[in-house]
């Protein structure tokens, strides 16, 4: 697994982990982020159980695990939250945040550990990290894609962690930052059309993020947007019409045949 410092200034760091060559092909590639502020760390979407050992080992390059103070789970998917019990078991004092609607569901990943989560209200909240109490903000991103979903904004670095928004299905050796936006949209399009259920929710999120005006947008899959690519991403998202499942006449007819066959059984 690789890790790269994407922001470093004033005792405040952002580190991205990803592009794990050891993970099995069946497991979707994910980016994990760590914010380290005045020696205290916050993990953003720490990854699934399958990559837990790699993530944990890579984190040790940068911090002592004693310093992990909080974990934020943008939503409930297994590639984010199935490792939470391992983290809370290793760091018993860590505070884990996720949407209030998912706390009871994620607790099923307990694996013998009681998984106590802090339910984030729908409107979001601020979370202090580090001795200087730098605040990070949980920005509502409901229905983008999960019905209880948050992005994380850090005003100190002006970075927004967007979860699955801006995510792309990329080949293993893909660069960490988007270099050719138009080429990159090909890798994002299918993902968004299928995983994002609501155009309205997506447009509202874009509106909120334009007001925040981050310098970097970091998704959980794919590559990071910075500079002019941030605006390009927001414009692209604003134009997307998602939440459709238009299979076309041919597939519909085929489906009819299949359904009829099942009905006859």
């Amino acid at each position, binding site marked *: 697994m690789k890790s790269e410092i994407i922001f470093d200034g004033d005792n405040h760091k952002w580190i991205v982990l990803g592009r794990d060559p050891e993970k099995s092909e069946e497991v979707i590639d994910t980016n994990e982020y760590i914010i380290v502020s005045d020696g205290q760390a916050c993990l953003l979407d720490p990854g699934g*159980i399958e990559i*837990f*050992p790699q993530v944990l*080992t890579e984190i*040790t390059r940068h911090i*002592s*695990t004693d310093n992990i103070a909080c974990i934020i789970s943008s939503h409930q998917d297994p590639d984010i939250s199935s490792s939470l019990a*391992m983290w809370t*078991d290793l760091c018993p004092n860590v505070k884990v945040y996720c949407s209030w609607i998912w706390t009871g569901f994620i607790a099923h990943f307990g694996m013998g550990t009681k998984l106590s989560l802090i339910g984030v209200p729908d409107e979001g909240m601020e979370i202090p990290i580090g001795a200087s109490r730098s605040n990070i903000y949980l920005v509502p991103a409901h229905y983008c894609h999960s019905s209880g979903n948050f992005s994380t904004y850090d005003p100190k670095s002006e970075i927004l962690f967007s979860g699955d928004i801006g995510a792309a299905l990329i080949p293993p050796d893909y660069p960490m930052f988007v270099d050719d936006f138009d080429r990159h949209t090909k890798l994002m399009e299918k993902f968004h059309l299928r995983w994002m259920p609501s155009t309205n929710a997506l447009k509202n999120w874009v509106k909120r993020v334009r007001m925040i005006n981050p310098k970097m947008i970091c998704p959980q899959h794919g590559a990071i947007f910075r500079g002019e690519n941030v605006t390009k991403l927001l414009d692209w998202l604003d134009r997307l019409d998602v939440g459709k499942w238009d299979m076309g006449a041919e597939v519909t007819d085929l489906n009819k045949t299949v359904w009829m066959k099942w009905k006859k059984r």
Partner: protein
Amino acid sequence: MSLITNNYMNEISKVFAIGVDVLNGTRSLKNISLDLKLLAINGIVQAAKIGTNQGQSLITLSGFLSDLPVQIAPELEELEQVSAQFARQLTLCSIAVRRYLNYSEALRNLIARVLKYSRTAYTADDFNLLDPKVLAKLANHPAFKNVTQNDRENIIRFASKNQKVIELINDLLYDAHTLMNKASKKLDSIKRNGFIANYMGSNILIESSYLSSDQKSFSGLVENIKNIVKILDEQLMKISEDLSYGDSVITTLIKLKSK
């Protein structure tokens, strides 16, 4: 994953499968016992139709046989409960092992990275991460003399976590072992009833062989009784073998961690 950890995981998977087999086997005994009771009752009815002294002795023998399932019912119930606890214990163990594998892999990766940058001949394979004693002293090992403060803290924390999980697994394995012994004792008691059922079946067969040819329909029933007793014997033997195999695997696992 190191060879020793891989081996450990395979053995745990085996013992987990044994737990499920024992539970299923125990549950199937209940059905066999019910079949035996129904056949014995049928035997009483058939024997009553004969109406001779031979018929009377067959009624008595079939009566004994039909009582057996009733007698072993509480024991079967207890065996099922013990087997269910045993299977549950092994499931908890299997979950704990899954956690251990993740933590131990992280520790092993960390050790490998740290050793790569320090001038030492040690490798990650030189440390038995299944041994709580090794884990307890890991950070003080000469191989880690020159590591950074950050790496030292992480080694201490990971080793401590591995130690706790491996101790938990051992506790669970010891408990599973105790339950396994309990199940074996229950099974021995049920086996004795199995021998009695077999004996009764043989006596019914002998007694029915004296019946005249027009009463030979009884022999089909006796054959069924003999078959069901045979199935009961085989099932008891299978559970007994499973428990014995499980016992040897658990004993090996408990020893393996301290090798």
